[in-house]
């Protein structure tokens, strides 16, 4: 399953609920305001980085850039993708689950 998280972890509990319920081996894409969950050295970094053995994390590059974060260090192992990469991800997983 591919999980989409589009809200900031500092605003909503979408990311933490996703992390609680996603099955190991899932992909998790951080997009829109969800990209803040990808940042290094925040109060949620450990919560996300701690699961990098369980999930493959992705972050939508255009949303990072829009928010002035292109030069900021991200969590280890997170892969930056674009919209075409987003489309590819949805084909590689059986189901897409948006955490709204």
């Amino acid at each position, binding site marked *: *399953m591919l999980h989409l998280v589009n809200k900031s972890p500092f605003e909503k*509990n979408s990311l933490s*609920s996703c992390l609680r319920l996603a*099955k190991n081996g899932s992909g998790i894409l951080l997009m829109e305001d969800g990209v803040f969950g990808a940042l290094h050295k925040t109060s949620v970094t450990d919560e996300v980085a701690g699961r990098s053995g369980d999930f493959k994390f992705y972050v939508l590059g255009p949303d990072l850039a829009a928010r002035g974060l292109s030069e900021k260090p991200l969590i280890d192992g997170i892969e930056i993708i674009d919209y075409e990469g987003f489309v590819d991800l949805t084909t590689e997983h059986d*189901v897409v*689950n*948006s955490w709204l």
Partner: protein
Amino acid sequence: MAEEYEDNVDGPVKRFLFVNRKAPYGTVYALESLEVVLISAAFDQDVSLVFMDDGVFQIVKNQDTDGIGIKNFSKTYRALDGYDVEKLYVEKESLEARGLSEDDLLVDVEVLDSKALSDLMDAQDVVITS
């Protein structure tokens, strides 16, 4: 709802999971997502509902909306089994975090812990969250 449907739609039967994470009345999603649930059942799909996070508040008893002037639609949840929608699940952790128990709920549900709910979600074909 007075719409006409083709009741001989050819197509697969898929497992549709409707995820409810938001409280009722503060936003419209609880009401409008119920409408999608009813239509999915009319299309003979294999429908499950899960209530988690603030979505558990959608099915608490004793909702009285007279003071806020909004229609109380909570009895619709009790009518779901009449539409062959019987698979209602609630996340245990969400209930407990909100000081609720099964006794607070107005409809029969199966309470699942996160692990069991995770397995259920992973087995679906289509997931629609509002």
